[in-house]
């Protein structure tokens, strides 16, 4: 293999794929990045057997070939190279990659690409298409609700359902649920239902650019895999097997109190409460006090800790229904409010022991269900 690339492109490409490099693996080759000439470009790939990321960069190819380069060494080296052309040539016999740029000349010991796990090559037909920017926003709005505990693997994933041109993403960790619905510009032929690891979606949001690029999602049949393909980047991930909880049943059908507040004010109040609720259990009380002719309604968000002290914040609110005192894990409230972009949000509650629902005002198809907390008796 003999290729020339621009240092800038190489550094960027390595930055993207190195996210999938397995940091601790018994398989040494997984700590390496596959470098391969492919269709007139240079392909960089990394995988930890769950998530694989591939990036193609423009290259001048003199001789086809491939090898795997230790990720850390390669990235560190390329980072120090001048912003100029980088020439690389592989000694197939010794698997030494010579990297030459201006005055610097380096040899890196590599591992034969034969040992690298094969990465799937999907057909590009029949996938669902998204606008990258929209998809990133949808991911951001649900992915934080996914569980980080492996005890129930299903919950570490995000449920993705596409029927016609309707997309639903849902994530839950056993105590809260985030559901986001959206419309696709193009309908899919066959309905899709899959559970994608939350981590894969987070990586996708991270590696995808900010432009108006199109991302194609493919679920090759029988492979238990999902592939997101963009112009120069491809991310593949294993799907999670299992049944996602019937989330529609979890969403309360009715409520007795509806509180509309400024998203920002509510978020600030929660952040303040969290300072004091951090010790122990993150418990914060939300006291919904309806107004009357004389004065407007308010909600009081309070938290206390034996060690640090206590805090109360009052936020003006428009309240329909009865007064209610309910306790939540304030982190759940904060994380949900953080991803709501409308100026106002509605909190729907029924009783202290019933779930609370957050809905952005004037934005359909987006909600968070948060289970309450209570103090034992």
């Amino acid at each position: 293999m003999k290729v020339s690339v621009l240092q800038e492109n190489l550094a960027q490409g390595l930055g993207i794929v190195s996210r999938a490099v397995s940091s601790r693996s018994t398989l040494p080759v997984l700590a390496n990045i596959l470098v391969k000439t492919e269709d007139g470009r240079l392909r960089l790939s990394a995988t930890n057997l769950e998530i694989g990321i591939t990036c193609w960069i423009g290259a001048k190819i003199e001789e086809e070939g491939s090898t795997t380069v230790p990720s850390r060494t390669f990235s560190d080296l390329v980072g120090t190279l001048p912003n100029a052309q980088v020439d690389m040539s592989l000694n197939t016999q010794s698997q030494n990659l010579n990297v030459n740029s201006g005055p610097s000349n380096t040899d890196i010991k590599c591992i034969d690409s034969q040992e690298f796990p094969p990465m799937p090559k999907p057909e590009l037909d029949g996938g669902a298409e998204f606008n990258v920017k929209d998809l990133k926003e949808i991911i951001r709005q649900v992915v934080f609700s996914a569980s980080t505990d492996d005890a129930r693997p299903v919950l570490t994933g995000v449920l993705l359902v596409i029927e016609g041109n309707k997309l639903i993403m849902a994530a839950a960790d056993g105590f809260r649920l985030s559901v986001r619905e959206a419309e696709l510009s193009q309908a899919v032929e066959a309905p899709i239902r899959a559970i994608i690891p939350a981590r894969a979606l987070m990586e996708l949001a991270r590696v995808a650019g900010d432009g108006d690029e199109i991302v194609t999602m493919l679920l090759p049949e029988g492979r238990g895999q999902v592939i997101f393909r963009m112009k120069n980047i491809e991310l593949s991930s294993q799907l999670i097997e299992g049944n996602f909880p019937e989330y529609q049943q979890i969403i309360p059908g009715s409520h007795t109190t509806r509180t509309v507040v400024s998203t920002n004010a509510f978020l600030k109040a929660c952040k303040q409460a969290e300072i004091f609720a951090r010790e122990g259990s993150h418990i914060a009380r939300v006291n919904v006090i309806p107004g009357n002719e004389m004065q407007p309604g308010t909600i009081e968000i309070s938290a206390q800790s034996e060690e640090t002290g206590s805090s109360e914040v009052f936020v003006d609110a428009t309240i329909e229904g009865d007064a209610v005192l309910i306790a939540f894990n304030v982190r759940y409230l904060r994380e949900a409010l953080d991803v709501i972009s409308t100026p106002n949000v509605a909190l729907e509650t029924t009783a202290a022991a019933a779930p609370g629902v957050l809905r952005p005002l004037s934005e359909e198809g987006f909600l968070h269900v948060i289970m309450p907390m209570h103090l034992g008796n």
Partner: protein
Amino acid sequence: MNIIILPDEVASQIAAGEVVERPASVVKELIENSIDAGASEINISILEAGKKLIEISDNGEGIERTQLITALARHATSKLRDANDLYKISTLGFRGEALASIASVSRFSITSRTKNSLEGGRVIVEGGTGGKLEDIGTTVGTLIRVEDLFYNVPARLKFLKKDPTEKRQIDAFVTRYAMAYPEIRFRLTQDNKITFQTSGNGDKREILSSLYNPEIAKQMLVVDSGFDQISIKGFISPTNLTRSNRQAITFFVNGRWVQDTALTSALIQAYRTMLMVGRYPMAVIFLEVPPELVDVNIHPAKSEVRFMDQGAIFRGVQGAVKRALLAFTPVPELQNQLRWSSMAETINSEFDQGIKPPPIGTLDDDSAKSVDGPIDKGDQNPLPVEGVPLLRQIGQVGASFIVAEGPDGLYLVDQHAAHERILFEKFMKMQKDKIPSQALLDPITITLSAEESNLLEDNLPVMGKLGFVIESFGPKTFRILSMPSLLIGSDPERALRVVIEDFEEDEKPFHDQIEAKIIARVCKRSAVKAGKILSTDEQKALLLDLEACSSPRTCPHGRPTMIHLSINLLERQFGRKGAR
């Protein structure tokens, strides 16, 4: 059906079965008699594990020549006059059965003289029959020879354990009585070899040395406490000294050795969270209770007792032991003679095998000396009572241990064990108020076995207190509605199953202990694991939290949270001190 009254001989053999079970019980009965007779010297001589001969001589007050025959009759005693006396027994014996029982199953002779008469008497009995008084010259006191025990009860003889076992039993009895009566000189001779003797100078620790070994005796902690008219004294092992069974736990109630499982478990409970699973402390505890508050007349062998206020006694024992422990729990220190290179192994194997310092490579020939004496006088200073010293975080080793500096050297803290302890205490503290519980998005249904579901059913209120809201959902099926918010991040079903297993295992002497046990289990799983890299801030926070704990030196399962390398030890290792 033809009913007859059993001949005396048969009746006494039946009664003997209860009192005289094995050679050791003969020894026990006879020693108790000697002690009751006010002896200051007791010699015991055994041949063939007591099957051939048990001979006990004392210098007690002796028995009047004329009463020797009466003494051998059943229900003959000098220790009791009427039934009322039964409720305030202050002597070891009282039933008046021992001599008769022993005499009925052996070739028996008793020789005795009181200081008031010039002449002693002797009675020889075979299998309970015979018995003629003859005059004989002897010293003041009593000498009893029991030969060919069980010669007329072959069944009993057949069921005796092997000689070494029987010998050990005898040793156990004698040493324990020596312990309880340090002012009496005991001498035990087995097969013409002296196996045990005490000087009778009243020093209990000296007897401890022969009971265990001098090294252990030196480390035993003193318990000295009491309430009302009850006194609780004795010795207990520090937490780093354990056995794999309960055999080394001994209780004396009013000078009588008793085997009471409830007392034993009260003691073990006091060590709770400080010992590793499956390890038990060593202890010798003397309880002095007013005779009217304790009933010893439960079993002919008198090894069981019943207290008027069982709970108070248990709490007393537990409290006394706990206080002694808290004051003295040491931070385990690395042995001087260990090689630095083998330190990692040491730590591992200490964790694996419990306490014994493993025999890993020694530094040089000098080590032989350092093994003998205490490691270093400086190191033996009692550690600051309770708690840990202020620690300055230095760094983390192997993503598992935090290195910290204290006022007197280096401390290695096991991050998992330390965090476990911190969580445990936080949870326990919270439990005093209220444990916040978090409702589940979709309740989890679990099915249990019949036994498990009964256990859970019984303990639903306890579970509620811990933050588990569970409802019955059909036969043997339950729904978890809420779980303790501290456990967020772990699987509710698994957490609950762990708890139920605990219910099963629990010996249940104290119901409220279940909660602590559950919490300890739960904390183990929630604590930060070894192998996790902690940021500097996290390490500092961990040390700070640990300092705030009330028993920071062990995790709730009894593993040490830290190892101490004193400046002294370091100086020695670098050859700056104690020239080599």
